[in-house]
């Protein structure tokens, strides 16, 4: 009994101080190793800062101009090497009738559309095409849910996927309210529209915008007050898809009927 008490005495006095000293020095060493490591990695990953410019890109889709020919979908597939059966952009056909809304998008609209069945056409009140794609939200849910940081928002407003780092867990595919994401069937990673970041960086327009013959798709910089998107953004009536999701999409739809979801 006496012995144990003596042990505790020892612990209370000199040894506890010693233990704390060791512990503190150990923690300090770990902290220093950590900090030096972090500093080194930060120095290497500075690429994005040099490219950071004062741009805020936006995309405008004019429902009244789309003819649904599917050239944009084909151009996107060729430009971005999109596997068959999945689409980075696609065109939907809406047929509004008294009974409800018919929506179809055969092969993403890539080969155009056949006429609707006579039965639906008889009931049709209005019909139009809606091109869809990644909305490059200001507040993207897909970026929030990515467990490894493989999807991110670039300083210019592009939501991009790091194909080398993506695990393919498809959590982002579920998180996107617009269904714009898919798992690339060849690379087995998450894939989506990049607004043709590689083209825009070289001063070109996205492939779908260049392919559009009627001007239904417009892309540009909101920071440039003379650009087409700025003029439409400031002057026209536009809507975004699913505004109640609070994702702040950067694709603005002109003359979007309220039936479109």
């Amino acid at each position, binding site marked *: 009994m006496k012995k144990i008490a003596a*042990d*505790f005495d020892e*612990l209370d006095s000199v*040894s506890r101080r010693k*233990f704390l000293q*060791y*512990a503190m020095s*150990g923690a300090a060493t*770990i902290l220093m*190793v*950590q900090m030096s490591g*972090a500093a080194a*990695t*930060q120095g*290497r*990953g500075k*690429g*994005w800062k040099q*490219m950071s410019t004062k741009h805020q890109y936006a995309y405008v889709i004019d429902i*009244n*101009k*789309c*003819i*649904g*020919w*599917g*050239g944009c979908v084909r*151009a996107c597939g*060729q*430009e971005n090497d999109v596997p068959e059966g999945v689409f980075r952009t696609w065109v939907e*056909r*809406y*047929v509004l009738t008294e009974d409800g809304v018919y929506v179809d998008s055969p092969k993403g609209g890539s*080969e155009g*559309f056949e*006429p*609707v069945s006579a039965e639906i*056409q008889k009931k049709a009140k209005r*019909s*139009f*095409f809606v091109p869809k794609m990644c909305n490059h939200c200001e507040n993207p849910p897909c970026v929030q849910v990515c467990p490894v*940081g493989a*999807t*991110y928002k*670039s300083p210019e407003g592009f939501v*991009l996927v*790091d194909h*080398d*780092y993506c695990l393919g867990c498809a959590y982002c595919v579920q998180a996107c309210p617009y269904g714009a994401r898919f798992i690339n069937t060849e690379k087995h990673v998450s894939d989506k529209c*990049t607004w043709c970041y*590689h*083209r825009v960086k*070289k001063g*070109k*327009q996205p*492939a779908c915008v*260049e*392919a559009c*013959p*009627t001007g239904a798709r417009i892309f540009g910089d909101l920071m440039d007050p003379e650009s087409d998107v700025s003029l439409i953004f400031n002057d026209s009536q536009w809507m975004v898809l699913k505004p109640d999701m609070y994702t702040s999409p950067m694709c603005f739809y002109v003359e979007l009927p309220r039936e479109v979801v």
Partner: protein
Amino acid sequence: MKKITALTHLYRLGALFIAFIIVFLLVRQWATPSDWNYEVWYRGDSLTEVGNLPLTHGGNESCQVCHADVVKKVSKLRHKNLSCESCHGPLATHVRGEKKIADAIVINQSRGQCLNCHAELVSKPQGFPQFTDEVEKHTTLIEGEVCLKCHDAHDPTP
């Protein structure tokens, strides 16, 4: 043999704790890419990699480099708003580097190519030229079914 005291247990626990932290840091170091950017929380080089992907379509301005006369001529015609590559195929299949690798011929010269845009559909905007059923009678009047036999693809007059 060394005497086991209450202090020994504490030392062992401390050693285990430190070992765990060291292993965690090593695994973390190994799993984190070297170009990871802690400020923005993504791989810094990824932006450069996505930006350096090769172009497939060059746009009409790249056609102008070699075919300035054609581009200038078409820019005054009815189909001036069309991308050359929509019918002629993307630039990457025509030119590599500065050398021509294949002719940019329009593979699909059938009426399907024209009807892809101009077939009549209720969903198309009003005012867009669409071929009604009458065109069927019109084409059967002429031998064969190729629109391009009479109409110029760059300047299709009604």
